[in-house]
C-alpha cells in the first residue's frame, strides 16, 4: 500500500501542465529479477488537437482517433506472466497491462450501435496498420461491450457520455515482438534516440520474463472542466532476469560454469573433487544498465519538461543496496526521496557528456524491498479432456483479512459453448458454506460465427477465503476452412479480466486518479483443443471414392441401360444385309461427292 502511495506521488504529479515527460522506475525483485517500468506522457490541449496542431501527440495516432471519433483508447501488448507470489502486486495496480497477446478497448462516439461498430472496425484496421499487429482480426466474434468491468478513465463531458460506446476486443494468439516495438517507439517525441527510451532494445525487451506495452489516450480536464488536454500515456513494464540479460549477445548459451567458479557446500559429507552441491547465492549480482539493457542512456530527451527533470530515473530498493551513477564526466548522487526510493536526473547538455549508466556492484545479500501484497490471486484452468466437452475452473484467492468485491469478465470464442446452468460459484473457508458470492450476472450468449459469449459476474469473496468458479462447455465442430494452419495446436481463449472494486478503505487512501484507473488482474490464456479433422484425409477419401464411383457406377449404369440381345436375333445381322448396308453407304458417299462437284460447277457458271 505504501509503495502504491509513493507511486501515485510520483506519477500523478505529471497529470497536468507540461507537455511531455518520462519516467523510469527500477525495482530489484527477489531471485535476481528486475522490474523496469517506463512511462511516457505526451499531452495536447484539446483545442490544438481539434485544429490538428500536433506537437508531442503523434499525428498518426491523433488522426486515427479523430477519424474514428474515438474519445478514449487503451491498447495493450503483453507477453509472459506476472509472478505475484515472488514479485508482489502488479505495477500500476494492473491498470496498465493487458492479457497475453493484444487487447484493445475504446470509447467511440456514435449515434447508434451500428455506427459504433463501423467506427470500431475502422479503428482496429487503422491501428493494425500503425502497430504492425493483426488487430484487424478483431471482428464481431471477438468484440464485446463490457458492462461493469471498465469505466472511462478520462473526464468526458456528461452530455457526451450517452453517445459513447465501449467496445473491447482481444487477440490472445498474437505474438508480440520487435515489429510492434518499432512503431511504439516512433510515437515518442525522442523516438528512442535520447532519454530513457534509448534503453529499448528488442532483443532484451522480448527476452523478459514478463513484458507489457500499453498506450492509453484519455481526455483530462481541470476541476471546472474549462480547460482540457488529451493525454497520451505510453507504458512499458517488464521483469528481466538479470543473470539472463547479462549474457552477451554473441554468447547467449548458458553453458555449465567451470567447476572452479561454483561455490560448493563443503559441509556436505559427499563433497569432493567430483561431487558438488552448489551453495545458494549469498550476494546480490552486479549489474548496470549497459549489462541488462545492452545500451546506456544517451542523455535526457531534450523535449521533456525541464521542471520535471530531477526525478526521471528512480530506483526502488533498500538503502543498503548501493549503486554508482556514471553520468558523462559529471558526478551525480541520487536523491533520497523516500526510504526505499532514490531518484536521479539524466545529463541534459553536451558539456558534461551524454552517456548515463547506473552501476550496481556485487555486494552481500540485502533484504528485499517491501513489496505490496497482491489483493487477489487468480488462476484459471481447463478441466476435463476429450474433444467433445470441457470445463473451466477459475480459482480466486483473497489473501487479505477483508472481503473483496470484484467483477469477473470472460469473452469466449463462439465455438466454445458454455452452459450457464452449470455455472457454479463455491467459496471455501470456514463459515462460508452458505455465503452467496455471486451478486450479479451479465450474460450475452454467443451466435455461431457472429459473436462470442460475454459473461460478467459481480462476485464477493469473504476475508481469507478462496472462491472457485466453474462451468462446463461444449466444443463446436468447425467447418474445415475455418481451421487455422496450426489447427492441432488448439485455439486460444482470451484471459479473464478481473476488476477489483474499491472498498471504503481504498477510497480513503488512494487518489482520485488512481481510483479512476482501477485495480485489474488478468488470468493466463487457455488453449482449447477442438475436434480437428485429419487434413490429409479428404484427398485420400476423394481419390478413393471417385475411383469406386467411376468403376462401380459406370459398369452398373451400363448394365442397366443397355438392352442385351443375342447376336442372331439382331435384325439385319445376316451377311447379305451387311453387304447391302455397305453398298448403301458406298452409294451415299459417291452421291455426296458428285453433289459437291456439281455444286462447284454451278458456282463457276
Amino acid at each position, binding site marked *: 500500500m505504501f509503495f502504491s502511495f509513493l507511486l501515485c506521488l510520483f506519477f500523478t504529479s505529471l497529470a497536468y501542465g507540461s507537455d511531455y515527460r518520462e519516467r523510469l522506475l527500477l525495482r530489484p525483485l527477489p*531471485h535476481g529479477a528486475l522490474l523496469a517500468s517506463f512511462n511516457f506522457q505526451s499531452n495536447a490541449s484539446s483545442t490544438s488537437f481539434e485544429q490538428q496542431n500536433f506537437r508531442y501527440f503523434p499525428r498518426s495516432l491523433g488522426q486515427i482517433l479523430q477519424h474514428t471519433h474515438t474519445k478514449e483508447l487503451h491498447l495493450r501488448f503483453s*507477453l*509472459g*506472466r506476472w*509472478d505475484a*507470489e515472488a514479485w508482489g502486486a502488479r505495477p500500476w495496480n494492473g491498470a496498465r497491462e493487458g492479457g*497475453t497477446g493484444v487487447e484493445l478497448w475504446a470509447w467511440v462516439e456514435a449515434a447508434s450501435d451500428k455506427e459504433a461498430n463501423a467506427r470500431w472496425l475502422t479503428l482496429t484496421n487503422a491501428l493494425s496498420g500503425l502497430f504492425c499487429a493483426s488487430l484487424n482480426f478483431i471482428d464481431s466474434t471477438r468484440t464485446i461491450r463490457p458492462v461493469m468491468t471498465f469505466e472511462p478513465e478520462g473526464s468526458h463531458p456528461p452530455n457526451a457520455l450517452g453517445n459513447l460506446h465501449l467496445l473491447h476486443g482481444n487477440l490472445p494468439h498474437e505474438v508480440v515482438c520487435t515489429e510492434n516495438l518499432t512503431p511504439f517507439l516512433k510515437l515518442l517525441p525522442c523516438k528512442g534516440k535520447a532519454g530513457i527510451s534509448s534503453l529499448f532494445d528488442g532483443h532484451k525487451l522480448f*527476452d*523478459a*520474463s514478463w513484458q507489457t506495452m500499453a498506450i492509453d489516450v484519455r481526455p483530462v480536464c481541470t476541476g471546472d472542466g474549462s480547460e482540457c488536454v488529451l493525454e497520451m500515456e505510453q507504458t512499458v513494464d517488464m521483469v528481466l*532476469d538479470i*543473470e*539472463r540479460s547479462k549474457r552477451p549477445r554473441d554468447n*547467449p*548459451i*548458458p*553453458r*555449465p*560454469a*567451470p*567447476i572452479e*567458479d*561454483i561455490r*560448493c557446500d563443503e559441509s*556436505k*559429507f*559427499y*563433497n569432493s573433487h*567430483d*561431487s*558438488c*552441491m*552448489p551453495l*545458494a547465492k549469498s550476494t546480490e549480482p552486479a549489474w548496470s544498465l549497459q549489462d541488462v539493457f545492452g545500451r546506456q542512456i544517451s542523455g535526457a530527451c531534450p523535449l521533456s519538461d525541464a521542471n520535471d527533470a530531477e526525478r526521471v530515473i528512480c530506483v526502488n530498493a533498500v538503502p543498503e543496496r548501493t549503486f554508482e551513477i556514471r553520468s558523462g564526466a559529471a558526478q551525480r548522487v541520487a536523491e533520497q526521496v523516500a526510504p526505499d526510493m532514490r531518484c536521479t536526473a539524466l545529463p541534459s547538455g553536451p558539456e558534461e557528456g551524454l552517456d548515463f549508466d547506473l552501476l550496481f556492484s556485487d555486494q552481500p545479500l540485502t533484504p528485499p524491498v517491501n513489496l505490496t501484497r497482491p489483493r487477489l490471486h487468480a*488462476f484459471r*484452468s*481447463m*478441466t*476435463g*479432456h476429450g474433444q467433445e466437452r470441457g*470445463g473451466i*475452473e477459475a480459482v480466486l484467492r483473497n489473501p487479505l483479512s477483508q472481503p473483496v468485491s470484484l467483477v469477473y469478465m470472460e469473452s469466449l470464442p463462439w465455438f466454445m459453448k458454455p452452459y450457464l446452468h452449470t455455472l457454479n460459484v463455491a467459496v471455501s473457508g470456514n463459515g462460508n458454506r452458505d455465503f452467496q458470492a455471486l451478486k450479479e450476472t451479465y450474460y450475452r450468449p454467443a451466435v455461431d460465427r457472429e459473436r462470442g459469449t460475454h459473461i460478467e459476474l459481480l462476485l464477493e469473496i469473504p476475508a481469507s477465503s478462496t472462491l472457485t468458479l466453474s462451468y462446463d462447455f461444449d466444443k463446436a465442430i468447425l467447418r474445415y476452412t475455418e481451421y487455422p494452419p*496450426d*489447427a*492441432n*495446436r*488448439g485455439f*486460444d481463449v482470451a484471459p479473464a479480466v478481473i476488476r477489483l472494486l474499491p472498498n471504503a478503505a481504498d477510497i480513503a487512501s488512494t487518489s482520485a486518479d488512481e481510483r479512476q484507473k482501477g485495480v485489474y488482474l488478468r488470468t*493466463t*490464456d*487457455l*488453449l482449447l*483443443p477442438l475436434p*480437428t479433422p*485429419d487434413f490429409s484425409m479428404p484427398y485420400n477419401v476423394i481419390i478413393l471414392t471417385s475411383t469406386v464411383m467411376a468403376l462401380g457406377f459406370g459398369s452398373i449404369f*451400363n*448394365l442397366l441401360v*443397355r438392352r*442385351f440381345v443375342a*447376336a442372331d436375333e439382331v435384325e439385319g445381322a445376316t451377311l447379305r444385309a451387311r453387304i447391302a448396308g455397305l453398298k448403301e453407304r458406298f452409294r451415299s458417299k459417291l452421291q455426296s461427292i458428285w453433289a459437291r462437284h456439281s455444286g462447284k460447277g454451278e458456282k463457276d457458271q
Partner: protein
Amino acid sequence: MFLLRELLAEIRIATAILGLRHDPRLLKLPPYLSALCILVGTVWLLLLPLNEYSRQTYVSENALLPGQVHTYFGGSEHNIFRAYRHEVHALEHKSAEERTEKFVELLKDCGLKVGRQKYEYSSAGNTVSGENVYAVLQGPRADATEAIVLIGAWRNMDNVINYSGVALVLTLARYFKRWSLWSKDIIFLLPFDSASGSQAWVDAYHDAHDPLHVQPLSIKSGALQGAIAVDYPAGPWGHRFEKLHIVYDGVNGQLPNLDLFNTAVNIASGQMGIGTTLQRMWHHSDSYRDRLMTMLRGMLSQGLGHVSGPHSAFIPYHVDAITVQTVGDGWHDEMSLGRTVESLCRSLNNLLEHLHQSFFFYLLMQANRFVSIGTYLPSAMIIAANFTITSIVLWVQSGRPAAPSKVASTSNSEKEKAKEPDLTIVKEGRNVALVPAAAFEVIERHLFLPVGFIATVHFLGLLPLYVFNTAPQATLKASFTIFTILTLVLPHAFSQALARIPPQPPTPQQITLIQSFSLLLLGLFLSALATLNFSLSLMIGLLSTPFSFVRPSKSPILVGLMNLLLAAMAPPVVMGGIAWWFGKDVGELLAQASFGWHVWGMWTQVVIWLVWWPAWVTASVVAIGALY
C-alpha cells in the same frame, strides 16, 4: 462385340451364383471358409515382420528436428548430478514425509514453483498411498498454455528405487531453469511410485480424479504436450549402461504418437550413439525371429492393457509419453542419458502443434521398423469375420427344414425313401414344373429361448467381473479356483436345465440359433475391439476359434473330445495356464487386474468376462447339449 460377350459372360456368372444359392454344396463350404479366415489371419500376422510388409520408421513432424541441437548438459553439471544422487540416496531410509520435504526443498532451491499431492487408492483390500512432488518451470517464452512433463518416479515398475533417475530430473530442473528458450512450461514430476503416482497426478491435472482419494493440484500449467519418464535405478556410485530401453505401452493398449518414439530412438542412436531396444528384447539381431518376437511381446503387452511405466497413465489423456530405461552394462554414463533427455525436451519444445502427424496405431518390431494399422488390422478383422460367417450360415441353416437326418437313418429302406423327396407341381401361366415340396415349406424360427439364453449367459458374466474386482486379495485365489470349477460345470448344468425345464427340450433349430447369436455377438465385439485394441481382439479371436467349429453331436466320443478341447480353452483355465507359465500367482495376477480396474481404468476384464467367457459357455452348451 467383345464387350457384349464379356457382359454376357458376367450375366451367366451372376445366374450361376444365384443358382448356387440353393446348392446344398454351398452350405458345406462355410466351415472351410471359416478355417481359411483363421489361417489367413494367422499367416498374415506372421508375414508382418518381413521387409516387404513392414516399414522403416521416419519422423513425420518437421517441427521436432530430433538431434539437431547441441546439448550442453555436462561439465560441472556432472558434479552437481553426483551431489544430487548422494542427496537422493540418503533419503532411502527416511520416512516418506521427510523425503517429500527434501524434494520440495531441493526443487524450491532451483527457483521453481513446487506443489505436493497426496493420494490413496484401495483395491482388492490393499491400500496404496503416497505423495507426489512436482515443480513447474515457467518457460520464459511460454504463456502458460502448453507444458511438457519430465518424470522421475521414486520407485520404478520393478519396485526398485530410482536413485539416479530422480537425481537426474532434479539436476535437469536446475539446469533447464537457466535457459531462456523454453516456449512451453516444464513440469518436473517426482511420483511416489510408477504404477499409481503418475496416475493420481495426471487425473488431478485434468480434474478427472476422485476427490475422496486424490488431492487436487495446487498449481497447474497449460495443456500437456508430452511426457518423458526417466528410469535409471543406479545407486550413489553410478552404473554405466549399455542401451536405452524405450517403453511406450499405455493403459488398454493405447500407444503414444510414433513420432515421439522415433524422436527418442533418433536422438539416442543418432546423436548420442546409444543403442535402443524395446519390449525387453535385450539382444536383437534383426532376424525374422527377433522381429516376430518383439512384435508378439508388444502385442502381449498391448493386449493385457496394463501399465508399463510411469508414462502409461498419460496416454489415455492424449498426452504422448514414453519411459526411457537404462539396461545392461556398457560405457554410457548418466551425462549421456541427461543429454538425451535434454535433446528430447528441446525437440518437444520445438513443437508448434500437438503431436498428430505420425501413427497412433502401430506394431513395432525393432527400434526402426514398424507396421501401421492399415497393414496389420486385416489379420484381426479376418479372424473376427470367421465368427460372423459361421453365424450367418447357422442362421440360414436354422431357417431350412431339418435335412433328412443322417443320424436317424439306419436302415436301407429308409435311405431309399429319403432319396425320393416329396414333389409338388407348380404352375405359372402355361409352364408347369415339379419342385421339391421342401422348397416351399415355411420354417418358423423360435427365437425366445435362444435370445433369452444368450442374454442370461452374458448377464452372468457380470458375476466374475464384480467378484474379481471387489474381493480382497486373500480370497482371490480361492474364489478363482471355485470359479474355474463352476465354469467347467456350468455348461453341463445349463444343458441339464434346458433339457428338463418345460415345455420341451430345445430343438436342434434352437441350439443352432443359440450358437448363431453367440458367434454373431463375438464377431461383432471382436471386430469393433480390433480398431481399439488390436492385440486383445486378436488374442481373444484366436482363443475362440474352436467356437466356430463346435456342432451338436450325439456321438459320445466326439462330444467328449470337444468337451475336453473346450475345457482346455476355458477362460479361467487359460488364465491359470498363463499365470503358471510366467511363474506368477493367480491371486497376485487378479489383484493386479483389480488394481488396474480401479486405478488405471483398465477394461481387459470386461472383454474377458463379458465377451469371451459367455461365448465359451455357449459353445460348450452347444457341444454337449445333445447328450442330455
